[in-house]
């Protein structure tokens, strides 16, 4: 039994998009949609999480994820505490101690980012009952709110997932975003998910997750409706995974020219932060196909949705009480 679901199949934590049924995935998107109206208003707050404390516990640096989680919590009227931890001084035992100490401050929810795969699940297994854990990225394993905001953005532009060809391009092996996207899009019934990368950036048996594997960018982009570029970390050059940025861009970098084989209405996405001229050309990232900034905006509504769902709160009930 998954640790993130309760006995009724409702979210208790949000750790991964793997194994979530279509109804639950759709419910997250629908809830986010109802919140997006709130964001547009001049008074940007709902009192759904009033009196609750959300702790952003980041063991890895992050700007947009932490900020949008913070904004989401604040727009739900929660009290927010940001804690940044230097992982070089942290080991397993102190992780549990830290959790207990923070829990002693009566937190209702932890938003956790950590460099180790499984860290969010570890926290979820150790928090007190009633305390929720949201995974803001664990190692190469999962980044479920990113995948849901991507799904939300895709739905806004393309509607139903069933006919969609989605191509994810870049460092699949070290990407928690790619794994969570694959599970979420498959759960939502996507027509075809492709991963496009050189073999050094593909993890073993990636096809077992339900994707088509392409080494050639042109073939991988053919007739694609959605094209997602992943961030390429500089460390990959040192680890002998890639020869260099120039060759990578030549073969796997996205540009207007490379996108010609894609569907004429294809949208281009990126989870950020962007390495311009490495995985994506500036003119494409800033051009009309790009929905990259919409992704960031949608991140707030999606994170509001997930925060309220894990606490068993609905935006409707919030409206009644206001």
């Amino acid at each position, binding site marked *: 039994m998954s*640790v993130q679901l309760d006995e009724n199949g409702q979210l208790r934590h949000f750790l991964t998009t*793997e194994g979530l049924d279509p109804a639950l995935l759709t419910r997250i998107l629908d809830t986010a949609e109802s919140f997006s109206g709130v964001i547009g208003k001049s008074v940007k707050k709902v009192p759904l999480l009033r009196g609750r404390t959300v702790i952003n516990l980041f063991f890895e640096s992050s700007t947009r994820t932490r900020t949008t989680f913070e904004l989401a919590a604040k727009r739900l009227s929660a009290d927010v505490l940001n804690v940044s931890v230097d992982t070089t001084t942290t*080991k*397993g*035992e102190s*992780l*549990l101690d830290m959790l207990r100490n923070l829990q002693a401050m009566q937190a209702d929810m932890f938003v956790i980012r*950590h460099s*180790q*795969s*499984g*860290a969010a*699940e*570890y926290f979820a297994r150790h928090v007190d009952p009633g305390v929720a854990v949201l995974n803001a990225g*664990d*190692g*190469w*394993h*999962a980044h479920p709110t990113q995948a849901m905001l991507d799904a939300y953005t895709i739905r806004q532009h393309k509607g139903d997932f069933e006919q969609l060809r989605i191509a994810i391009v870049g460092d699949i092996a070290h990407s*928690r975003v790619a*794994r969570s996207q694959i599970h979420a899009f498959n759960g939502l019934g996507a027509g075809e998910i492709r991963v496009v990368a050189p073999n050094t950036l593909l*993890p*073993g*048996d*990636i096809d*077992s*997750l339900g994707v088509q594997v392409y080494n050639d960018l042109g073939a991988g982009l053919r007739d694609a409706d959605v094209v997602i570029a992943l961030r390429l970390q500089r460390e990959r050059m040192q680890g002998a995974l890639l020869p260099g940025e120039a060759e990578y861009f030549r073969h796997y970098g996205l540009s207007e020219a490379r996108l010609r084989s894609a569907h004429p209405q294809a949208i281009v996405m990126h989870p950020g932060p962007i390495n311009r001229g490495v995985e994506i050309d500036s003119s494409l990232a800033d051009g009309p196909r790009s929905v990259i900034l919409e992704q960031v905006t949608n991140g707030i509504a999606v994170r509001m949705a997930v925060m309220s769902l894990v606490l068993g709160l609905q935006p409707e009930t919030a409206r009644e009480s206001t």
Partner: protein
Amino acid sequence: MSRILIRNARLIDPDSGLDSTGDIAIADGRIVALGEVSDFTPVQTIEADGQWAIPGLIDLAARTREPGATRKADIASEARAAASAGITTLVVPPDTQPVMDSPSVVELVHHRAEAAGAARVVALGALTTGLAGEQLPGMAGLAAAGCPGLSDGGYPVADSLVLRRALEYASTFALPCLLTPVDTALAQGCLNEGPTATRLGLAGVPAAAETAGLGRQMAIASATQARVHFGRLSSVEGVRLMTAALGEGRKLSADVAVHQLFLTDQDAMEFDPRFHLQPPLRDIIDREALRQAVSDGVIRIICSDHQPHDQDAKDGPFASTEPGASGIDTLLALVLRLVEEEVLSLHKALAAVTIEPAKLLGLESGRLAEGAPADITLVNPNAPWFCTNESLQSRGKNSPFLGWEFSARATHTLIAGRLVHQPTQ
């Protein structure tokens, strides 16, 4: 010394092929008569009532954590746990702190074991000084201190020339060398490279990490006279290499950790650190190939690869925890389960934990025979028990088999004719 008579036992000796009902007479720490025993006046008689009498188990790879990491376990705790689980000899690798590369450390270990008065502890000497892979330790001195063999202690010698010379020098003193068939650069990960590791976002270890190490070490071994043994095979590819080498008549041998015969990488699906092992848990195809290899005699020895850990070492996200499983409590029960599951015959299963490791290291024990040391385990094959935190006698509670039910257990353990484990009255 006391004189003990074990009466009416099913005597099972894989070395001689013996399987018949009879008695065992023990005097001065040795078996003096076997089968029909007459003219023997015991001080103590153990009524076996048809239970099995088998040679005490020899566990070819068990860490006691002493010296160096006694917060996890110590010689006394693990030697007692072993005895209560039917193991009469623990063979300990040299990767202690300090490393067992000098007679003084080896003597310390042997003294502590003697003081504990439970299972025998046999120390393997370090194949290179400090296990650093650069210089040779005083191998003759280690042998004189009681090391029956040498081991790389889980740290493969990277320099091929050093490895060749270490094997050659060891062969001068007829010391068997126990190697870890791993290419360390390829082994940077914590789970089999495959669908499960990919799902969990964990770094995978390919089978090539084993075959690259194994192939290189086999090639170097062939340039020497050394008796070489490979520890902890984990993959179908490794089994294939081993099968081919044996087919060419090479004098090599290999063992497998017993957990590899029961578990797969899918057991780690919930990031449970108890399944973080080295070599990593692999695919069901590998598990089946390993079972077949034991059945075919390609792998002749089964060990527990016992690595007790304190709670902190196994607490945290999967990759950040320390690898290894606590195994001495379940070795006998798991080996007999292979018989229940019809993977192995009873004699073959028991040989893999008695006479085979004894032969590799030139130990006298591991057999039921007149004149042999009286290291004997009495087994009740139908005494169901659950493996729980409380049932574990080892200080290491990191067993991957918690919650499993087993049918066989050791009721009595004799070591050098001394009854060190018996049912609590």
